[in-house]
């Protein structure tokens, strides 16, 4: 038999099309009637905001490739124009489904539970009409800037992602030529306008309808012939995508210099928009038909996140989960002594992120702490970690912080607090040239009676106390010397020093991680060939690295059982005879965002478990600084394996990838409903309680409260 070429493009799925499937799975949660209604509208909103980002980053990038004449096929052998064509079809389908879901399922259901969304201003009663007109005059009119286009006034700049109302107008007297006019629906005002309640019924109308109703007031000497909302998306994110190949980057950089700022890549218009009006907008924006989306319903569904926030509907939402304290910390106030007793594994958001914040906070005040070093990728607005770091610097500790300025959409926020840290006396490293620092690591150096001891936190998620309540992540607190040495070496490398002679425990990208994964996969393959038990379980956000996928195919063919839990993009195909028959892929889309990266290798019965910050994507493995760390403590390893087991058993939120490339929810016939995320919540609560019990029973003395 001829050797199989595992790199053959036919064995791969285009990553963008796979991403669309992921957004479909989110939308499916909006369609799933077993979810509380308001959770469904949240998923609807997420699917829309995800799609917006996808346009700005991915579609924009593909268009750049096309414009630059880049003609290298992708992992699945598709050229940029082929991808764009397929994507246009897929996105139209996705958006159609979004709006059918909204119009046919969600809106009627909302009406039933006491929320009416008045779709058109024409449907307002006289009384309501008066109400909104007054609202318009008092609140809206003063902030509007209507702009008309004629021979002396050029087409205005329509801002990215803003909602606008386009109109055709002509002078009431004299020349009756049609002019184009536009007004931006102001972002400073709430998009939702609440009408007076009718009985128990909450009633809302969207701001653009209120403006449309009053549009004549904006163009007093004109007759408004027609007006319709529209929204455009531009290739606004001009920073070059890190995901592409280096040669492409160069090409695009050249092109960028020649190109005008922010080319329009998507135009959304209300269905039934006047043809002349559409033609005018289309011409001015130079946008082609396949990038125009005619929409039956309100534009920009991200507004439903605001709808989710309306008061009085808590019964239709999932009760917010309160993270519990990890049992190791119960009854202990000194975090360092807890870590000295043994490694601690944190499973967020089931377990609280507080110990991580506390770790930095305590270190900032502890007189024996000499230095704190941390990498920060995305932090929350009023981050307690930043506060603690700046206090530490003020307290004379050596504080080194690597701030990743290139974290997309967060640049400005990052610069502000980085400057604040610098002022406090911290040494701030503003990222590395050509690499994004994505690893999550904190090192605390402490002088103790028997010498220097290093405490390390390693995580799969960002140091962000807000997202830590929503994202599932794993964290490890340890003071093992081997980890401490490696952590020091990581920060040395991030500071521009040479690599260490060798690593004890950590594997770092971009230099070593990919090879390590490939060798771990190859080891399973060899074990399978040698007749030993061989298995890989890997959980990540995305899987699209060609070499890793090929290695997985090879391992699968050798008989390695491979179970993948991939939330988002997956360029791997399952069930190809002789290639991927032993591979399963499931995606879990639940209330919490699955974010942890966990890797299990059977290793001939001596299993190894790793966690890390990297997905199996070229950008993670080749263009980012990432860390993978082993979970070696027997109990903690068992905990992580248990997490994987539960996720693999999920019958509620998991969807399986089929050999035809589609994802389907697990067939529950004969199976119990098991939702891993719910289970983890219950389990964490139970464990925390029982640990508290133990502490209170073992305490034979009482501790008086001290009034501070």
């Amino acid at each position, binding site marked *: 038999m001829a050797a199989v070429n595992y790199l053959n493009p036919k064995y791969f799925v285009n990553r963008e099309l796979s991403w669309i499937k992921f957004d479909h799975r989110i939308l499916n949660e909006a369609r799933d009637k077993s979810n509380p209604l308001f959770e469904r509208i949240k998923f609807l909103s997420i699917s829309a905001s995800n799609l917006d980002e996808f346009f700005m980053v991915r579609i924009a990038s593909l268009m750049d490739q096309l414009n630059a004449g880049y003609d290298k096929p992708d992992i699945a052998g598709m050229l940029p124009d082929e991808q764009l064509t397929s994507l246009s079809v897929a996105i139209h389908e996705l958006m159609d489904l979004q709006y059918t879901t909204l119009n046919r399922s969600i809106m009627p259901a909302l009406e039933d539970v006491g929320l009416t969304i008045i779709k058109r201003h024409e449907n307002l009663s006289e009384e309501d009409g008066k109400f909104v007109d007054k609202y318009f005059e008092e609140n809206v009119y003063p902030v509007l800037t209507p702009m008309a286009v004629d021979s002396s006034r050029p087409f205005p700049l329509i801002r990215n992602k803003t909602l606008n109302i386009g109109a055709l107008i002509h002078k009431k007297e004299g020349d009756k030529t049609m002019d184009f006019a536009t007004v931006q629906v102001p972002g400073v005002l709430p998009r939702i306008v609440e009408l007076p309640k009718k009985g128990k019924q909450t009633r809302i109308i969207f701001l653009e309808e209120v403006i449309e109703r009053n549009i004549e007031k904006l163009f007093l000497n004109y007759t408004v012939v027609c007006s319709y909302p529209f929204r455009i998306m531009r290739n606004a994110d001009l920073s070059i995508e890190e995901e592409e190949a280096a040669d492409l980057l160069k090409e695009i950089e050249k092109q960028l210099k020649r190109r005008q700022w922010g080319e329009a890549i998507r135009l959304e218009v209300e269905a039934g928009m006047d043809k002349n009006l559409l033609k005018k907008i289309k011409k001015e924006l130079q946008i082609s038909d396949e990038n125009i989306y005619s929409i039956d319903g309100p534009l920009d569904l991200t507004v439903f996140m605001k709808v989710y926030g309306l008061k009085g509907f808590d019964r239709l939402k999932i009760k917010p989960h309160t993270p519990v304290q990890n049992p190791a910390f119960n009854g202990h106030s000194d975090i360092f002594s807890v870590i000295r007793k043994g490694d601690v594994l944190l499973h967020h958001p089931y377990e609280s992120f507080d110990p991580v914040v506390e770790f930095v906070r305590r270190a900032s005040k502890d007189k024996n702490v000499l230095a704190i070093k941390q990498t920060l990728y995305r932090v929350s607005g009023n981050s307690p970690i930043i506060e603690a770091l700046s206090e530490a610097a003020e307290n004379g500790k050596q504080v080194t912080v690597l701030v990743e300025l290139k974290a997309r959409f967060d640049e400005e926020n990052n610069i502000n607090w980085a400057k604040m840290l610098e002022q406090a006396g911290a040494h701030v490293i503003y990222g590395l040239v050509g690499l994004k620092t994505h690893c999550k690591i904190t090192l605390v*150096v402490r002088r103790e009676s*028997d010498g*220097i001891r290093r405490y390390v936190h390693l995580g799969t998620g960002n140091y962000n106390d807000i997202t830590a309540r929503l994202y599932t992540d794993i964290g490890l607190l340890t003071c093992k010397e081997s980890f401490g040495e490696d952590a020091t070496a990581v920060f040395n490398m991030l500071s*521009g020093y*040479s690599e260490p*002679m*060798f690593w004890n425990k950590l594997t770092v990208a971009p230099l070593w991680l990919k090879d390590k994964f490939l060798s771990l996969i190859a080891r399973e393959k060899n074990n399978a060939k040698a007749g030993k038990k061989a298995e890989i379980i890997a959980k990540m956000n995305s899987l699209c690295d060609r070499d890793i996928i090929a290695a997985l195919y090879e391992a699968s063919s050798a008989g390695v059982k491979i179970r993948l839990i991939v939330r988002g993009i997956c360029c791997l195909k399952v069930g190809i005879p002789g290639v991927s028959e032993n591979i399963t892929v499931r995606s879990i889309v639940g209330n919490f965002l699955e974010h942890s990266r966990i890797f299990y290798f059977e290793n001939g019965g001596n299993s190894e478990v790793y966690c890390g910050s990297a997905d199996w994507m070229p950008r993670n493995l080749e263009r980012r600084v990432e860390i993978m760390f082993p979970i070696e403590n027997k109990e903690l390893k068992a905990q992580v394996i248990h997490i994987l087991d539960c996720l693999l058993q999920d019958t509620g939120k998991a969807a399986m990838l089929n050999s035809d490339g589609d994802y389907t929810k697990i067939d529950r016939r004969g199976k119990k409903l098991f939702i891993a995320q719910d289970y983890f919540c219950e389990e964490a609560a139970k464990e925390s309680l029982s640990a508290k019990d133990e502490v209170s029973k073992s305490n034979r003395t009482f501790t008086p409260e001290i009034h501070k």
Partner: protein
Amino acid sequence: MSTKTFAAIDVGSFELSMKIFEFNGKNKIREIDCISKKLDLGSDSYARGKIDLKKVEELCETLQEFKNSMESYGVEEYKAYGTSAVRESKNMDILLDHIEKATGIKIDVLSNSEQRFLDYKSVAAKGEEFRKILEGSTAIVDIGGGSIQISLFENDTLVSTQNIRIGVLRVNEILSQASVPTSRYRDMCGEIVMPSLDSYKKLYVKDREIKNLIIIDDYLSPSAVRKAVEKNADPVMTVKEYDRFISDADNKNSTELSKAFGIESTIVPLFIISSQLVKWVASILGAEKIWTPGVRLSDGMAYEYAEKIKMFRGEHDFERDILASAYSMASRYECSRKKCEHLEKIATGLFDSLKNVHGLTKREKLYLRIAAILADVGKYVSLENFGETGYQIVMNSEIIGLSHREREIVANIVRYNVSEYDYNNSRADGDLDSASVIIVAKLAAILRVATGLTGGYIGKIKDFKPVLKGNQFLINADSDMDLTMEKAFFESKAGFFTEVYNITPVLNTKRS
């Protein structure tokens, strides 16, 4: 238990590095951190004789960072050493002053022999492994930027140490000036280094068979250590395994090499040179095993510091190595070992009995012992003027473990043991500071008396007991032979002693 932290800074030819160590009083040195940055000072020094100002600025910046890092560990003491690149830079003094003003860090410059001695100590810091490998005949091959040092050991004792100017950066300079492409480095390297290695073998190795090589280098060792760690083994290879290890490098371009050996692409040429050097040295010595302990100068600095603060006592007797290297030098100049030993013994005896008078330390006693061993080397060149020729020989030889200043002291003791003491020259001739001049005078005076006592024949004086009585130094010598000649000779030698100590040495002979 009290712990101490110490930073060892190595301003090397190709790299600036700092290691932070912790000593916790349990005879245990723990390395806490190691940071290093590539900075090629060597190429400037070796090719242009001067370190470029831009590099000096970079050096200062990095040292400043090192300082911050020291603070982050609460480091109490540091030592910074510059090696050959700094040493060979013509603007060394200006440079060092500038660095100290800019960063507050004082860099001491090591002589080659001091540097090698520290490297050697760094291997010794490995303890048990070092002791074990030294059981067989061993060579330490210390590959530096400017030169390599080969030290041969037999029965746990140093027998010879030699410096050959075929260091990695120097060879690289030659190859790159000759526009040799990296792909041809492997072949061309042998052509450059073999002539020197051949002469070395003829002169110093002769028929000796050296079984083990200990490699100290910055280019090959890290990869070798890494490979060993991956396999969970000691970084010891047989020569065959070594050949296989480096043959991985055959037919690979720089990028492939850098990936295969986990090294930066800028280091690839140096890696090739270093690995070839080891190969050639192994072949001329007929070695069987190669150990790459992956130590650096800074490890030796830690060892030295730990000894200084009495928090570490190594097993290995380094003083013996220094003396052994002096003996092997003496034998090269055809001095009789017996005679050397005899003089050394008498000089030591006199030194000890004068402890309260001269106020010198153990280290200075070592100078005297070395000078006693080397007292006659000058005779190899001239029987008439052997004080001067002896001085020249010592000044131009390497004595491992001695700094340049120390070597100059020894050379002067050898000189003034026979030559008339020159009150002006002793200072004007060399770089000796006045403290060293005093040491020279004090020790030369003792050596003269000792030489007087030996009188040129071994074994005439069986035993002697020196006693200090008032301002007389009574030396009661026991002999069954006639000591008339010794007495006369002694008196001619004693004048200088009286001048230095204001004590008159008196030889009392007793016939047993």
